[in-house]
């Protein structure tokens, strides 16, 4: 069980597979004490050791895969951005929406993602992952900017401008 806890998966030809096989049956409390059947290699540590030897590289590689995921999307996003054009209609808006939605979703689920990033370079990989998402977000913002959807101009706030208050009263006209 300790091996199970350490790794995501491990083939255990020993009792655990059998015990999994007859799931539902009551496992006796003295299960560990049962004698090993004839012909079975009791020393499974060899397998475990071998797994341990391959692991670090694989883990790092896999973690890099996860970490670089967002950055790999960048060229695709650029292509989509180019395809979408800058006119404001339903499809470009949906695409921009997706571009915003994906990195934000990834950032929200960052806790879960970070669980699977392991190894010595984990901190760096996490940073890369965050940076990748930020780049995607920045691209979405840039796209909005290009499309003129960002309220960056004075004109965008004009509707909220209050009328000027009148300081003097004046009246009059020609003689009646």
């Amino acid at each position, binding site marked *: 069980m300790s091996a199970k806890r350490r790794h995501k998966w491990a083939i255990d030809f020993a009792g655990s597979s059998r015990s999994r096989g007859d799931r539902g049956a009551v496992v006796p409390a003295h299960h560990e004490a049962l004698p090993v059947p004839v012909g079975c290699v009791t020393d499974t540590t060899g397998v475990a050791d071998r797994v341990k030897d391959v692991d670090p590289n694989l883990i790092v590689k896999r973690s890099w895969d996860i970490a670089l995921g967002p950055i790999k999307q960048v060229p695709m996003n650029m292509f989509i951005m180019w395809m979408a054009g800058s006119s404001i209609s339903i499809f470009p808006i949906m695409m921009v929406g997706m571009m915003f939605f994906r990195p934000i979703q990834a950032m929200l689920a960052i806790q879960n993602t970070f669980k699977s990033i392991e190894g010595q370079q984990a901190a760096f990989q996490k940073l890369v992952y965050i940076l990748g998402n930020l780049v995607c977000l920045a691209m979405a913002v840039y796209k909005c900017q290009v499309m003129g959807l960002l309220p960056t101009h004075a*004109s*965008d706030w*004009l509707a909220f401008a*209050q009328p000027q208050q009148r300081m003097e009263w*004046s*009246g*009059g006209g*020609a*003689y009646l």
Partner: protein
Amino acid sequence: MTPEAIGIGYSPLLEKPKKVNSMASAMWIARAAGFLSLFLLTKALYEDQAGTYDWKQDNVGKVTHVHWESVGLSSTGKKLFVATERNTLASLNTHDGAIGWRQVAEEGTRGKIDTLLYNGNYIITVQAGGKFVRSWHSQTGNLHWEVYLSAEESMSAPASFLSKDKDAVLVATSNALYALRTSDGKTEWEANLPDSDTVHRWYLSLREDGDVVAVGTSPGVRVAVVIVGQDGKVKTQRRVPAQWVKNETSCQAVGEGFLCYTPDTASLQFLSVQDGQVFVPTAVSELGFSATAETCLEPVSTEAGAASQWVLLRISRQHMALLSASSKGVKVVRDLPKVEAADVAYDGENKVLLTVQRADPETVEFTGVDLTTMSEQIDVSQRISVMAVHGSIEKIFPMLFTRKKDSKLGAKVLMVAQDYSLHCAHKAGKSPWRREEALAYMVAVEMVDLPVSENEAKFEDEFGSSKDDILAMFVKRIKVQVLQLHMIVAVTAAGKVYGIRSHNGKIVWQHFFPDLAPFKGQGQEKLLLFVQRTTAHFPHSPQCAVLGVSKKTGNGLLFTINPVTGAMLKDTPLSGLDLGYKVIQAQLMNDLHDENFLKGIVLVDSDIKIHFFPTSMKSVVQPHSGTMYLHLTNPDVGTMNGYWLVAKGEDIVAEQVWNIDLQRSQQVITGIYGKRPIEHVHSQGRVLGDRSVLYKYLNPNLVVLIGEGEEASPKGPSGFFNLYLVDAVTGHMVFHEHHKRTRGPISIVHSENWVVYSFYSEKHRRCEMAVLELYEGKEQSNATAFSSLTPPPSPLVLRQSYIIPVSLFTMSSTVTEKGITNKNLIIALRVGGVLSLPKALLDPRRPSIPTQETAEEGTIPYIPELPVSTESFINYNRSIFNVRGIHTSPAGLESTSLVLVYGIDLFCTRVMPSKMFDVLKEDFDYFFIGTVLSLMILVSVVSQKLAARKALNRAWK
């Protein structure tokens, strides 16, 4: 989204072209024009919508001449042909007063109708002092012929038929006496008249031998007597000195003589036409009467142009006398005490004097006196109901006829009351009909919205019976909101005030103030109307104030009225509050009100002393006095003075702080136009193509001054006008524009940060319109407050001008509740249409070469001609003429603005410059949407039930 983008009408213009080059720009213009025409098209009404949102009321004006319809020699009296003070000729149905046909001549002296003649088939009008003589077909009102005579427009030209068979018309103009053939208007003969440069008026009469007697009065000098034979030869010509003759002296041809009344000596002056060398005076007191200010001679109807044997002397409003005059002296034929109006009517051999006097506050009494026997004609005497609120009867136009069944005499009488209303007793025993002709003299108007809130439900009883159930009340309330009911308060120059429903034009209440006269500065009749409290301040009743001049004293006269119910308020006495001083200017203080939400009126008397109404407002104003300014312009002197209102002890005095000399010797100030205080400006700036903001210069104290003049040029005198933009607080000249070779009348609309004006260009001989727009720039120096004392830097003035292919009467701009909606200009055209023109067409930022950026901004490429399409006439085919003003008012909905066009007619409608963005379209399918919605609710309820059952079943498995 910028507020401008709400203008749905222009949304296609915001779409930008992909590439701009010379080809594309041409296409862009074509596209823009296409969109524009589409936009304009969509504004037109459908045929079945005509009259649902608008109403029009035709008037004729105060009646001056009347003829009853006749066939052959006998009068049928089924129609009335009237000519009025408002230059209108009309045929009225005697039965109900409806207009059969109407011909409206141009305003001013060019269109005034001096004489009206009728020969059974044709009506002949002598207009503009005899300059135009026109013959009209009496059944259709079509023009039969028209001739031009040499004449002085301002003179009043008399005319009559030359003989009993009415085949020639005599017209006396300032220069000559003409005899025109009735059939085609050809001049039969022409006789020169003396004193053509001094004569103010000619009096014509026919003698029994067929000679024509013309008597001309030259004010302050003499009277000329000319006798012309039937062939046009002048027989005798004589001049009699008469220094007492004035412009307004009332004279009349009587029998063989000529009689005048001079108020100076309170005497009648008689001259024998045949041989009289001097006027013989007879004092009115000798006849046993005492003269009043109203004493004058009134003409008596005659048969076929012969001089009447009698003349009517009006002694006062309620006292007349029938006189006869000869060289032996003036005799009183019949004293007519209490009589308000009288005239003689003829039928065959019968000559009956009809008099009218008030019997009681609700009825007037007619009395007929046979003039041959001097006995009362009981057959024509009758009582009919005419309310005393119409004032006294000013003039009657009777028609006498013999009844077929019992050959008794009968009379139909048309009466003109003091308030210009027309009453007609058309059938004995029937109630007379009435026309409110004072409505043709509207000078001031306001719209007050009717209350709709819960608390004010009791007011709604005004619209129906109080027994209505809750549902009916609810329907009514919805109706109030949908129809945007307003009360139009209309003040007329006749001294009459009306409350009119805005959705159907029905008169709800009316008041007649006999003592109220309009201000008459610069030849314009003006009465002031202020909405002191609106309906929004329940339980305080709304209040309107009417300010004019007292006829008796010449001082300011003020009335307060509840505009919803029409009740006179206790603030002023029933006969009006005589202010005790001459008012030279009055203004409503829009921002200041007392604890009862009553806005005060500041009044300036001729000594530039400041008064307030109500006087209690002084204490409210006191704390604000340092920030209040006043400007007064005296066009006679050509100066504009600025005053500062400061508290001096208890009083508030006006201290002069600046003055501008407007060079009276070169130009006359013809108008001063401020902004409407009720106007809201929603957007503080304008979004440009690069999405930066050009801030508007919204100076609330800015006024536009127009000075018109004439200057010498090598080609003769040419007109010009100056337009000044002046800050009314500091007197600072913000902008000045000079237009050479132009001529008025100049119509101005001053609103928000722009001024639109129209003028006539003498150089191009066409009407042009120009626009000025003022901007602060891309930065606002003070975003929160505007003070004229620390003004922003000189504004950027953008200008452009356009050609308008038709001339116009006047114009105005729409106004809405919050100012979000685009503005349209409402232009009353001389062709009879009322044009609603988007302000975007008068935009100085319209580019002559369109680029992508200008397209982004949404400006329409510049085309000099303004489109005048008949689809954008808001009055479709209901032409309206002689328009004096256009009043616009915000409606309950932001998208809608109410428009009242007034002149001789009234036309009221609503306009939606940005279309109805806040209301569902009329073609919205309520039934379909409602069905779908209820179906969906049903389906969701059912499916929820089914799903619950299925889940339960699964759980049991």
